[in-house]
Structure formats: structure tokens, C-alpha cells
């Protein structure tokens, strides 16, 4: 080979390298990345596949245990192949609006991640990834597909929605969702976590003010004896007596409070013990009186049995005559 010929070949090679991205897109696809053991089987020929290689219909890409490849198709779609995969471009036709679009590829083993191009947008019904047990169609644009050692197909959506079909039917898979295809006779099973928001909680049952006694009356109220009138000093002449207490002091026995709902159970003669012994504090006891009744020695009479008692504080002195 003369030096002229060498120059000529070198120049042609450089020229081709400079314009390969443009010429490459004339094929179905172009290998934009390859790492590890990646091979191309075209007919009976098996050759190493490297960056810049073109793919056409019928080509088979095989990746080894460390092999990876990324293919850019002429419609802008991308396919990333993972190790131990066998990928076939079964039928590819980029109609570009003038003819029919077809994107049919087979994944026999391994895994692939795909981002659809214009074919998937123009004619989604003709975009299919065929596996031994399922056919993945698309209504969206990005998905991951993997076949495990048992032949089960795992498909997850990454953008928009895809459709995974078996002979039993199809299910939709949106971004963040995933399905497992166990066999071609069963519907794909959703595998992603499905979170729920709990229903609102019922109010806490131990709210002090909600407690009722066994007779069904509100608040388990202790009512202490009404304050005894204090003779001195006399009440002012102009001051009318204050309005009566909204809950009149009860009789000594356990009759219901006025206005309270009827008790569902018979009124016990003696109130059952509260859940916790309670006693009014000394500071809230009625003031000592000079007339009967004498102040209780231990605790005032109990009308209602509280869990959390409330006592009626005597009105401020000087009290008017009290209704008893």
C-alpha cells in the first residue's frame, strides 16, 4: 500500500467518523454505548458490538455477565440492556408520518429499561415488547422490564402508563407501580407497596368530662350540701338573691338531676364505689355554719357517683336563704 493510499483511507475513515451520527440514524438503531461483553448476531454471524454500530430488524443483541448496551432508535427511543440479556429487534418501521410505525422487540432473558420515542407517541398500539410470558404495550413512555431465572417477568412503570398483558388479560402500570407476571395464563400481580391513610380516630374514651355514672348522668357530680346561711352580716336590702343554681341540690337520696336523661338502670340505693376513692378537698368544703346541718366529718353526702367528680362550690357569703 502506497502512502497515497494510506492517506486516502485515513481521510475517508476520519470523514466517516465525523459524520457517523447522521448516517447512523438511517438504520433502525444505533449503539450509543456498550460496555463489557456485548455481541451482535446478524443471521448466522456473531460479532462484537461496540459503540456506533447500527441495528436493523432481525438483529439480536446478546450481553454477557458484565455486558451493557444502550441503543438509540431512529425515532428517538432508547433501550438500555442489562447483563445476561438477549434482545431482538423483531420488527422496526419508522413511518415518520408517511408509513406504518412498528416497534416490536423481543426480550428472551435478562433485563431492559426503555424510553419510547416517536413511534410510541404516534402509534402506541404498535409498540410492543414481547417476553416469553407477557407482552408489554405502552400508553406512556418509560419502563423497566426484567426476567428472572424462573422465567417470571417483572415490569415497573417509570413515567406515564404502560400496559402489561398476558393471555388472561391486561393491567395498567403507572409510574411507581410494578407487576410480576408469573405465567402467561394469569393476570399480572401488582407488587409495589400500596399505602393507605388511616381513618380519623374516635375521640379518646377517657375524656374526663364525658364520663357518666351508672345512672347515666353527666359528669359524676358531687353535690355538697348547700351552704348554710350566715346570720351576720345581714344581706343588703337592695341586693336581690342570686338566681338559683341550675341544678338544684338533690334530695338526700339518689334521685336524678333535673333535666338529666332517665337512667337506663334502676337507681341503686347506695352508690357503687367509684373507680378511685375521691374526697372533696378541705378547701372546698362548705363553710362552717352555726345552725344545722353540721359540717360533714368525712365528706359531704354524695348524690351521684363520679369517676372524676365535680363539686358545687357554695356561693360567696353572705348567702341568702338557700333552697333546700
Amino acid at each position: 500500500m502506497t502512502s497515497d493510499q494510506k492517506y486516502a483511507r485515513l481521510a475517508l475513515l476520519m470523514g466517516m467518523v465525523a459524520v457517523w451520527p447522521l448516517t447512523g440514524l438511517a438504520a433502525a438503531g444505533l449503539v450509543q454505548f456498550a460496555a463489557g461483553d456485548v455481541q451482535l448476531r446478524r443471521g448466522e454471524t456473531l460479532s462484537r458490538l461496540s459503540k456506533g454500530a447500527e441495528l436493523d430488524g432481525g438483529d439480536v443483541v446478546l450481553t454477557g455477565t458484565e455486558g451493557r448496551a444502550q441503543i438509540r432508535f431512529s425515532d428517538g427511543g432508547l433501550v438500555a440492556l442489562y447483563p445476561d440479556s438477549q434482545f431482538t429487534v423483531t420488527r422496526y418501521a419508522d413511518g415518520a408520518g408517511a408509513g406504518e410505525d412498528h416497534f416490536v422487540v423481543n426480550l428472551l432473558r435478562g433485563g431492559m429499561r426503555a424510553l419510547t420515542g416517536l413511534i410510541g407517541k404516534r402509534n402506541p398500539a404498535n409498540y410492543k415488547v414481547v417476553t416469553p410470558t407477557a407482552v408489554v404495550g405502552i400508553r406512556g413512555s418509560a419502563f423497566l422490564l426484567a426476567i428472572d431465572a424462573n422465567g417470571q417477568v417483572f415490569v415497573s412503570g417509570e413515567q406515564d402508563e404502560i400496559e402489561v398483558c398476558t393471555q388472561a388479560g391486561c393491567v395498567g402500570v403507572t409510574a411507581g407501580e410494578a407487576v410480576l407476571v408469573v405465567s402467561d395464563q394469569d393476570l399480572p400481580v401488582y407488587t409495589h407497596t400500596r399505602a393507605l391513610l388511616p381513618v380519623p380516630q374516635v375521640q379518646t374514651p377517657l375524656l374526663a368530662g364525658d364520663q357518666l355514672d351508672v345512672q347515666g348522668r353527666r359528669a359524676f357530680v358531687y353535690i355538697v350540701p348547700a351552704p348554710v346561711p350566715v346570720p351576720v352580716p345581714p344581706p343588703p336590702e337592695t341586693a336581690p338573691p342570686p338566681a338559683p343554681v341550675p341544678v338544684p341540690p338533690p334530695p338526700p337520696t339518689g334521685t336524678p338531676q333535673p333535666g338529666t336523661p332517665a337512667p337506663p338502670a334502676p337507681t341503686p340505693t347506695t352508690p357503687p364505689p367509684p373507680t378511685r376513692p375521691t374526697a372533696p378537698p378541705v378547701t372546698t368544703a362548705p363553710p362552717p355554719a352555726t345552725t344545722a346541718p353540721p359540717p360533714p366529718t368525712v365528706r359531704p353526702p354524695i348524690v351521684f357517683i363520679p369517676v372524676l367528680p365535680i363539686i358545687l362550690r357554695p356561693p360567696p357569703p353572705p348567702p341568702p336563704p338557700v333552697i333546700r
Partner: protein
Amino acid sequence: MYLRIWSRRVLPWCAVLAWGGGLSCAARADELVQQALALVQQGQALQAFRLLDAQEAQRAGDPAFDAAMGDAAHAAGQYTRAIMARERWLAAQPGNMEAQVALGQSLQAVGDRRGVMALPAPVQAALIPVDAGHTLDQFLYSYDRLDAGGRSSLKGYVELGVGHDSNANAAPVVGDLQSPVPGTPAWALLPEALATSGNYVVAQAGLRGRAVLNARWSVVGTAVGAARHYGGGADRFDHTALDGTLGLAWRAERHELIVSGQGSYYALDGTRLRTMGGVLGEWIYRIDGFRQWGSFVQVLDVRYPDQALRNVRRSVVGTSYSHLFRNGSSAYGGVYGGQERAQASGADALGHRLWGLRAGGQWPLAPQWSVFASADWEHRRYGGQDPFFAVTRTDRQAQVALGLNWTPSPGWRVTPQWSFTRNASTLPITDYERRVFSITVRREF
């Protein structure tokens, strides 16, 4: 002859031009990456992505380009493209921790848990824990194990905690209460009826599971038990709660329907205080794996064995929207309404109508830390004038909670939490505030 002349005189110039063009392209390429990175930093990620996308076929495999492409695509929300770019970057530099973490972030963004779990453990440790990102037990829960792969599964947890409760009995804080009726004496509460604070320890355990019948049908169930023991004078408010659900779930496409039977038992200081039983129907519409609407109808009989007049039938409907963001954050909001109808005749004042709002969210702070917050508001108007206080009870209850999740290692979680409840009620005895601070340690299995 002509070919020889052409090749000798013309082609060398072509070669020079080609090389020159190539060098120029290389220079421009570096400039391209720098320009794209600058755009990403300026928040114009989509523009950077488009800039790099045009050159990807030529420059894929160049680590600098792929790193920039990954950053731009991820920031622009093109997560699949980011994954492809970062996989190339990692293939060129297998030991590059930065590339591994970046790839993990993009895999998480598309919910590719398998891909994340395939990354080395140190890389996973540098990412937001997958479990924390996708099972938000503070707000959301799931019947499914993440690793179940759509098969039947059972998962459980045990939780121990300590805390301080400012108002263990949800009682008024103020002992001197003005009567709602003018001119009548004020009330004074005995100490037992006042807000009682105390420290407590709590133990809780739970199980959730799903038995898959086929691709559409499954049986779901939950069992949770909790016991809280207070120290000091608040120990009379020790309580135990048991809750269980068992239901049937049906799913088709975006819809999932779950009908569950519910049962609940609540004991106060060793004595049964309340039991509940009813039916819960849920309809979940999943827009995708990250967004969903959930609606429910609940009919629940609430029974107080020793306070039969309080027995009510609770009927509530509601809807909510929850969103899991690609960075692992989550948020939800919802509204609900219904009533609690007293079962006894003449006890309308013990039943009420209610409606409420709720919202919350969780945000990752660091790979092992996240913060969460929630706010609930509920309005209750009771069915009649209270016979004792001569007013119609109306409650406006607000509750806020704020907490942290720390995941020191997979399966473990430490949660310090503070919550505040304010129930503004027209009845003085049901008007209260409550503050609870707790730290819980949870082990999931």
C-alpha cells in the same frame, strides 16, 4: 491518476480539517459540559438537559458528559434518562461512590427498589432508606411487605417508648369554672377531675398482612395491641387497647376496594371502658404509584359497657389525597364528616355531628433522618342542650404533632415526637389542653 492527485492534494486538507474540527468539537464539548452544569446550578435543568441530549449519541460513555447528563436529567425530572446516564458513568468508573449514590437517587425517584437494593451497602446507607421513603407509618400504612413481590406476606413490629403526658385524663386545667348560667355559682373541681400529668411507658406491637387469593382478590388484616402505664398519681389512667381488622380487598387497574370488619377494646386501669365494632369500606384510586385518592365510609358501634348512655353509632365518610414525592417526601390532606348518634332514647345531647380536616407530611433531612408534622382539626356539635350545664355542647378540637424519625439501621426506628391537643368546648368540663412528648423505639420484622 486523477484519484491519486485528488487524494494527494485534497484529502490531506480534508484530514486537517477533520482533525481540526474534532479538536474544536472536543473543546466545545468540555465547554458544553460546563455550560450545562452552570445551567443546572442556575435552576435551568431542563435547558441543560436539552443541551446535552442533543449530544448524547456522540458523547455517551464519556464520564464527564454522563455525570453532567445524569445531573441535568435528574434535576429536570427525566429520571429514566438520568438512570441511563449514571449507569454509563458507573460503568466507566465502577468504584465511584459519587456515581453510585447519584444512581441510587435516580433509582429511588422511579421507585426501583430492586435497583437500589442491588447497590453496595455503603451506598444504600447514604441514601434515604427505601423503607422509610415508601412506608410512612407515621401517616400511611400498608399491608404489604416491600420485598413480598406481590405475594402473601405478614409483617410486624414491636415498639417501646417513654413519654410525658401533661393531661392524661383529658381534663380541664383550671379548677375554678364559671357556670354558663349567669348568676349561678362557679364550679370547683376536685383534684381527681383536674388535668393530671404524668410520665409514662408504652409498649405496642402490631401485625399486618395480606393473603393474596389471585391477581384481583386478597384478604387483609391488622392486629395491634398497646399498653400505657403512667407513673405516680396518674396511674389510674393506665390503659390498654386492642384493635383488629379483617377484610377483603379487590383491585382492578387504578381502583382498589377494601371492606373490613373492625373491632376494638379499650380498658382503663384494668377495667373495660369501651368496645367498638363495625365496618369500614375504603375506595382507593391510585393516579400512579406516587399519588392517590382515598375515600372511606365507616359505621362503628361504640359501646361503653358501664356507661350505656354513652353508646353511639358512629357514621363517618371522608376523602383524602396523599402524595409521595420523588425525593422521598410525602404529604396528605383530607376532609371528613359524619355523626355519632346516641343509641339510647332521650340522649341526643350525648351524640353529635362532626366534620374535620387533616393534613400532614414527612420530609427527609438526611439519609437516616426525616421530620414529620401533622395538623388535625375537628368540629363537633352535640345534639341537644346539655341537661346539666343548660348549653349545647360544641367542641372545636385542634391537634398538631411534630416529630423526627431516625433510622439507625434497617428495621430500627427511633421517633421523638411532640403533640399538642386543644379542645375548645362550650362545656367547661370538656375544655382542655394536652401536651405529650414521647420517644419510641420500634423494631420492625
